């Protein structure tokens, strides 16, 4: 058993914020100087193989974050609601999977939610300064007062996690209970889990614990058991122990090789710089042309020619005879 996180001291002296503004490593649409010293990286380890699907974590999440999910419908499956919502930061996804090797039905239960990527796609896509921050302990958090509700974070996320609230038009997702972690507690879901399928600690501790779990699983015949800590997003601060780590996608579509979409990279990268350069060049070219070529003015002869034409007097020849009878560009 992983040693549980003790309850916090009730002494006021102990109520010290463990991290905050000074520990912001990345801030959306802003340039920040990362703190000189990085906090110890934290992580939540979700051991899918120990999950009994009780949804205590889901309930604890609603409770701690004071969320009120709408009463839904039974769609004939255990998953409820059917998807993450602005009020459901974490969701038990149930999959009935027939193992082709053993022909056994396996009930795969995965707790879905923000993975707290080391390389967060949501933060990189966000256009609003400070709406998404990443603390040096690895927690990626949304700052609702800065959020403009554009939904770019949804496009940036490789895991399809953020949801925009129809009430306040800002984006919501799991905070890794940053408010609890800040005072030395584990996330609410972890606290509520009756089987230690969810454990929380430093990232190194979690990896160590995962190794122990994987060894155990392998000894029981799950030879593909492994840790899900996808390197395509620089690793995550929510990790899974999977019995079939070779095929993460069987767990309700967990991406096999998540990474920030190259389309998002192109949009936030080359398009932005080339686009601004091209627009700047167009404006500069116009300015330079005006300076060099001067304005294109109508001459006296032009006016006289027009008068002669309208009066029907000796209309000038159709082809220009000298430099004054000209044609030009207009917008």
């Amino acid at each position: 058993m992983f040693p549980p996180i003790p309850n916090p001291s009730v002494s006021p002296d102990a109520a010290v914020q463990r991290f905050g503004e000074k520990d912001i490593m990345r801030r959306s649409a802003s340039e920040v100087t990362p703190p000189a010293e990085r906090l110890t990286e934290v992580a939540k380890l979700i051991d899918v193989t120990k999950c009994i699907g009780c949804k205590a974590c889901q309930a604890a999440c609603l409770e701690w974050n004071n969320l009120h999910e709408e009463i839904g419908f039974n769609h004939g499956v255990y998953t409820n609601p059917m998807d993450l919502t602005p009020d459901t930061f974490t969701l038990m996804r149930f999959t009935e999977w027939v193992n082709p090797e053993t022909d056994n039905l396996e009930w795969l239960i995965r707790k879905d939610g923000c993975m707290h990527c080391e390389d967060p796609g949501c933060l990189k896509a966000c256009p609003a300064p400070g709406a998404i921050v990443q603390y040096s302990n690895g927690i990626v958090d949304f700052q609702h007062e800065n959020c403009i509700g554009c939904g770019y974070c949804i496009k940036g996320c490789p895991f399809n996690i953020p949801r925009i609230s129809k009430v306040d038009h800002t984006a919501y997702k799991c905070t890794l209970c940053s408010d609890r972690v800040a005072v030395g507690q584990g996330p609410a879901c972890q606290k509520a889990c009756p089987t230690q399928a969810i454990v929380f600690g430093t990232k190194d501790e979690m990896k160590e614990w995962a190794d122990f779990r994987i060894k155990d699983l392998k000894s029981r015949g799950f030879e593909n058991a492994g840790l899900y800590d996808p390197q395509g997003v620089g690793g995550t601060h929510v990790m899974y122990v999977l019995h079939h780590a070779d095929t993460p996608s069987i767990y309700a579509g967990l991406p096999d090789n998540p990474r920030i979409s190259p389309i998002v990279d192109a949009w936030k990268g080359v398009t932005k710089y080339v686009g601004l350069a091209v627009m700047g060049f167009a404006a500069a070219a116009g300015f330079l042309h005006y300076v060099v070529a001067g304005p294109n003015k109508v001459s006296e002869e032009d006016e006289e020619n027009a008068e002669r034409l309208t009066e029907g007097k000796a209309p000038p020849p159709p082809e220009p005879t000298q430099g004054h009878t000209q044609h030009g560009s207009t917008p």
Partner: protein
Amino acid sequence: MTAYDQKPETPDDVEAGDAVHPGHPVTVDRYTLGARINHWITATSLVLLALSGMALFTPRLFFLTGLFGGGQWTRAIHPWIGVVLFFSFLILFVRFFRANLPAREDVDWVAHSADLLAGREEKMPEVGKYNAGQKFVFWSMSGLIIVLIASGVVMWDQYFYNLTTIEQKRIAILVHAVAAVCIICVWIIHVYAAIWVKGTIGAMTRGQVTGGWAWRHHRKWLRELVGKGNPRGPHAPAE
């Protein structure tokens, strides 16, 4: 205008309300009041869209959201301005597309476009109401606005989130950004040409240009107006 409007052989580039008034100087009606109002609604929308769009395009310009009442307002209002622009331009398109159809002299005009920029306009062919450059602006705007409204709807999450997949939205967002850069460049060309060619802006403000302006820049159009209309009497007012 009535005199030649009814004639089936009215050239494509002569639009409703186009008329020449002899005098000193000669004045030419180029845009009706309706066309001008239509144009300026479109123009205002385009500028507001560019400002609000750029604010969300790059963090360095995020401060522009202040013009619209903050980030939330900018996000909410930008697509609606797009809807206004789309319908306003649609009407503009119906007004102007016939006069912007390709003509034989366009090829020659494009071939001599370097002469134009260098100030050697005597080498340019006589053109109708719009030259090839103006036609380029017209058709690029038309095409880009279709691309922008289509990609814009795909990324308008507030109302259309469920219609498309996230992958489709990612593509739409990239297409929208690239098309927006293009249309801003076309807009720069459009505005620069209006500033560079003196006497042009009056066409979109008061609706008129001088005869000399028409003679210099759109001689074929001027000849058509003089030939089709009654050159000895003033025409019906522009509207």
